[in-house]
């Protein structure tokens, strides 16, 4: 009896709430429409990976070819190279950026002087710069004819000039360096906010017990950063199938001689679609990325959720 009454009440308030919130639904509409257009409307287009694209017939009119595109894709060396590059660069970035970001975060948060704001400001600055401009900055150093390295630095050590944009052996290091230069300031902010949340009392009692600065950092700060490190790493692993298109396309200046070490899934899809007109391969590689990427993100989020609910994406 009372339950029936309650559900009746619920219905009443539901209607009331619906009416009350009409303005909010209208406000939400433009954003929802945009998400629908930008993120949902393209999804059916993924079937292109199973078709031989014919511009005249459109996506859905094109001939079905089953898994043929994937067979071709994985029969080429490209599939292995782009997967290897995407994953290995991401792993290198995770290791290098995490270590550097924690290092910077500890230095900045332990700094007593006001200068720390200036340091943080400068170290974060590269994050604000577009990849096109980064490619100019790198060019300033590496240009074969005019670059700083070939003209000033290498002669100083009596070394011959290097044709940087043709020699692939340098690029794994160069790209890892450029990426670290760009994002370490950003990543360190997240670690700083964790460090600032640590109870200062712990440090004070450690100091009374005679623990020096180095000991405090090693025994208190670093262990307490662990949860944040694990979380950041898991989320980065969730995105391991995606790469920063600008970094791998602009910074090596789309040089064919470097493709073996600079081609990632994102640059491959781009070139397939807009430079080579190889639509089947591009869409097969794109679907491969979407699906594996989705599984990895779900997996990473599942682990994060187990670890700390609040940090999970959903």
């Amino acid at each position, binding site marked *: 009896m009372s339950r029936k009454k309650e559900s009746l009440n619920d219905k009443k308030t539901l209607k009331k*709430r619906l009416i*009350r919130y009409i303005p909010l639904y209208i406000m*939400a509409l*433009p954003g929802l429409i945009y998400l629908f257009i930008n993120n949902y409307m393209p999804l059916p287009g*993924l079937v292109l990976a199973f078709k031989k694209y014919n511009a005249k017939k459109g996506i859905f009119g094109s001939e079905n070819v089953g898994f043929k595109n994937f067979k071709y894709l994985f029969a080429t060396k490209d599939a292995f190279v782009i997967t290897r590059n995407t994953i290995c660069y991401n792993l290198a970035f995770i290791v290098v950026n995490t270590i550097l970001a924690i290092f910077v975060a500890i230095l900045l948060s332990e*700094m007593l002087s006001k200068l720390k704001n200036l340091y943080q400001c400068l*170290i974060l*600055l590269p994050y604000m710069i577009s990849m096109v401009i980064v490619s100019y900055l790198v060019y300033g150093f590496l240009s074969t004819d005019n670059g700083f390295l070939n003209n000033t630095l290498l002669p100083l050590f009596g070394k011959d000039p290097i044709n940087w944009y043709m020699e692939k052996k340098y690029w794994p290091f160069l790209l890892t360096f450029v990426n670290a230069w760009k994002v370490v300031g950003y990543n360190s*902010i*997240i670690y700083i906010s964790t460090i600032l949340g640590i109870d200062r009392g712990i440090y004070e009692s450690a100091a009374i017990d005679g623990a020096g600065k180095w000991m405090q950092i090693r025994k208190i700060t670093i262990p307490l950063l662990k949860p944040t490190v694990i979380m950041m790493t898991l989320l980065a692993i969730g995105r391991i199938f995606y790469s920063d298109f600008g970094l791998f396309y602009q910074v090596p200046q789309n040089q064919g001689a470097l493709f073996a070490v600079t081609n990632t899934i994102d640059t491959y899809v781009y070139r397939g679609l807009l430079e080579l007109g190889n639509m089947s391969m591009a869409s097969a590689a794109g679907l491969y990325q979407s699906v594996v990427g989705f599984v990895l993100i779900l997996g990473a989020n599942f682990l994060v959720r187990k670890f700390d609910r609040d940090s999970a994406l959903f």
Partner: protein
Amino acid sequence: MKDEKKFQILAHAVLILLSVCAILPMALMIISSFTDNDLLIAEGYKFLPSKWSVYAYEYIFSTGNSVVRAYGVSVLLTLVGTLLSLSITTMLAYAISKPDIPGKGIITFFIVFSMLFNGGLVPTYMIYTNVFSIKNTFAALLIPGLLMNAFNIMLMKSYFVSSIPAEILDAAYIDGAGETVTFLRIVIPLSKPILATIALFAGIAYWNDWMNGYIYITKRTDLYSVQNLLNRMMQNIQFLSQSSSNVQNATAGLAAIPLASVRMAMAAVGILPILVMYPFVQKYFVKGITLGGVKG
């Protein structure tokens, strides 16, 4: 105590070194843009050139109509984009911040899922070119990918939930204020920090974006943003240096590509707005990253 002092000195030393590393490439770019071009060709880009010149800037602002125009496109794009992005993000985020709005779960899932699974470049390109035909229009710079993202919505929503006291909103409701009035008169004024942060994220993304122009602007070079112009210029340089074995081609091309100093001056002009605004907005940016926490 002694330990602390040693640490502080060491920390200063390391941080100075890192700060210098961070800005050194930009210093090289700006110095090169003020270097005499003949000197650049003879000795390359240098930190301490023996001969200075402002020729590159005179060249850009006298003959370089395309630079001024691209600047206009970038400024307009950034203003319009930021304004639109901020409004639709705020409105959607506010709606899902209401704990008792019917359909909240479905709407939130709709937003979050867009973060997890996407069609990628090929289908997105197809939709925008075939269905919406935005190729070679201003909308191509404005709309694809940049206008709104799930991350900013969730960031803003969590601000609304945590920083705007529910009591105030309830009181307004009891006093008979409608949802629209409450939103405009109470929520917006209380949300200035997050509005500044999201506007900043959007503004930087628009100013720095080169991809939309690169993909969708294929004919209308008058729609090039600063980034697209810089991008095109670098490609021309690369193309010419690759085909320089063909001597005739190279000499014909040399007249068309800008001088070494002009290139760097253009890049410096492209970075200028960021450098000018940065000291003032950096605080909001850091705050935003901290709010986003590990999810960033």
